[in-house]
């Protein structure tokens, strides 16, 4: 979206990510999405009196991994209580890091070469989940809310960017790159639809070169699509307000995906008073060099580096290949692609099969070995399998595993080896002498006729390119 006149957006994002630990942040309850309600709860995460929190070592390590991937400084940090009342938070305070976060001052480089600064990435605990009932009007007073505390105390890292983002598209690129990093570090599964990654956007507008305008914080952005739509809507709303002589109030706004609009949730006139104070039940956190080094040594390659490594092996750089590289990196498919390239498969073919066939059946990758992927693509490249057959053979491996050559044989694809294709073409030439004569005289359209006939005989399993080769060889 282009903004009218000299207007420019100023966006900062707060990304909350649930950490993929086995247990919660301060107790040994399972950190598991989708359990029966209130089955992963204990005195600590229910906020029962007298219970004491003990910090999860793995949560600290994942937070450090995120910080390192974002070029942050790992700093000595403390925990505070953020006090407020809401039924999904049974203690009436959330334990969070306040003035001294574990990670400070980093940056994230985006694929378009822009850099977004990271102010901090701190640890905090998630709240429970409430479901609102009512509105049925059966009995007055029947309207109520139900609370499940399975999520209460699940470890989170909140990553706060600087106000460096200037468009909804850049915000999307940032969120997407960050998501890739969170997945790569093993910190998160990146599933926005399950709420394991949640985004709040701080949006303001200004005329280029002027100081920052008043910002609004938009909540409830549950997908990258919502993020883009909400930012565009909010920037336009603020510009229209200002151009109409109004003033933007600092407030929290709620994004309604169905309405495609943001609306006031609460104003910040009464500056939020959370009465932060040090959590007396937790001691300071200051990972020493040895602990930090252990985490650093365990860090895998980040998406940017993996993208560069894969792109360097491409023989041409088309838009389609660029998109395929994105998919392959995003879904962690590059082991297959690199193996195929090592085996001499054409990069375009390897990328296409990975970004389509493998990406389309991502949950079944466990059945497909790199060797099976390479062998199938080599058979296709040699012409032993048509494109359709190669896809079928890959699909079969994804569904049930197995060896590609035997699968091709069991499906009758081996009939189409070059010898049998030769036989089929020879038979057809005898069957259609007039068409063959016209083709020999130079009527190229007849090639299509013969391909059609071959396909009919082979039930669509032949490789068109090889049929033409056969025809030309006999011309």
């Amino acid at each position, binding site marked *: 979206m282009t903004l009218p006149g000299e207007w420019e957006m100023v966006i900062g994002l707060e990304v909350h990510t649930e950490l993929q630990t086995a247990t919660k942040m301060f107790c040994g309850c399972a950190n598991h999405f989708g359990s*029966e309600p209130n089955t992963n709860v204990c005195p600590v995460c229910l906020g029962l009196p007298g219970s004491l929190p003990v910090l999860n070592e793995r949560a600290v390590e994942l937070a450090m991994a995120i910080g390192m991937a974002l070029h942050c400084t790992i700093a000595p940090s403390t925990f505070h209580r953020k006090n407020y009342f809401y039924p999904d938070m049974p203690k009436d305070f959330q334990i969070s890091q306040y003035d001294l976060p574990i990670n400070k001052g980093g940056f994230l480089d985006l694929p378009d070469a822009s850099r977004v600064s990271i102010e901090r990435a701190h640890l905090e605990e998630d709240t429970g989940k409430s479901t609102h009932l009512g509105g049925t009007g059966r009995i007055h007073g029947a309207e109520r809310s139900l609370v499940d505390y399975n999520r209460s105390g699940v470890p989170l890292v909140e990553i706060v960017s600087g106000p460096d983002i200037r468009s909804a598209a850049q915000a999307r690129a940032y969120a997407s790159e960050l998501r890739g990093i969170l997945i790569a570090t093993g910190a998160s599964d990146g599933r926005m639809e399950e709420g394991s990654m949640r985004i709040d956007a701080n949006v303001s507008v200004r005329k280029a070169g002027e100081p920052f305008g008043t910002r609004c914080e938009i909540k409830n952005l549950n997908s990258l699509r919502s993020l883009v739509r909400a930012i565009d809507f909010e920037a336009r709303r603020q510009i229209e307000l200002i151009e109409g002589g109004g003033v933007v109030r600092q407030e929290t706004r709620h994004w309604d995906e169905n309405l495609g609009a943001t609306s006031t949730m609460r104003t910040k006139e009464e500056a939020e008073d959370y009465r932060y104070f040090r959590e007396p039940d937790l001691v300071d956190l200051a990972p020493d060099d040895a602990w930090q080094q252990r985490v650093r040594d365990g860090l895998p390659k980040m998406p940017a580096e993996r993208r560069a490594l894969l792109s360097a092996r491409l023989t041409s750089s088309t838009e389609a290949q660029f998109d395929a590289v994105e998919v392959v990196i995003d879904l962690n498919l590059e082991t297959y692609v690199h193996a195929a390239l090592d085996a001499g498969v054409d990069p375009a073919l390897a990328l296409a099969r990975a970004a389509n066939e493998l990406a389309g059946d991502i949950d079944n990758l466990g059945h497909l070995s790199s060797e099976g992927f390479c062998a199938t693509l080599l058979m296709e490249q040699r012409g032993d399998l048509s494109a359709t057959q190669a896809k079928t053979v890959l699909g079969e491996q994804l569904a049930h595993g197995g060896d590609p050559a035997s699968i091709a044989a069991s499906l009758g694809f081996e009939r189409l080896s070059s010898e049998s294709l030769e036989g089929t073409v020879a038979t057809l030439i005898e069957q259609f002498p007039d068409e063959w004569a016209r083709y020999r005289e130079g009527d190229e359209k007849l090639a299509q006729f013969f391909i059609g006939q071959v396909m009919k005989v082979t039930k669509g399993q032949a490789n068109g390119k090889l049929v033409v080769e056969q025809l030309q060889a006999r011309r």
Partner: protein
Amino acid sequence: MSSPLRRDDVAHVAKLARLTLSSAELDMFTEQLGQVLEHANDMSSLNLEGVKPTAHPFELLNVVRADEIRASLDRDEVLAMAPDAQDGRFAVPRIMGEAP
């Protein structure tokens, strides 16, 4: 030296803590809390140059536990403690608005 505690401050803190205080209670707590804060203010008379802020009397750092699952509570037992429950969840009066 910070300014003495005012009655308005007490009313504000009470509101944040969801406490309804009578006028007499406001007066009482303003005086009592004021004394507590004054006591803390005594620190200001000391020379604390170069003393690091501490939140703990202990020199402890990095107290962590291994990320290992331990048994959770029995749900029936948990829900039995609540005034009301429905569908395995705690039932509470309808929540107005979103969490801050």
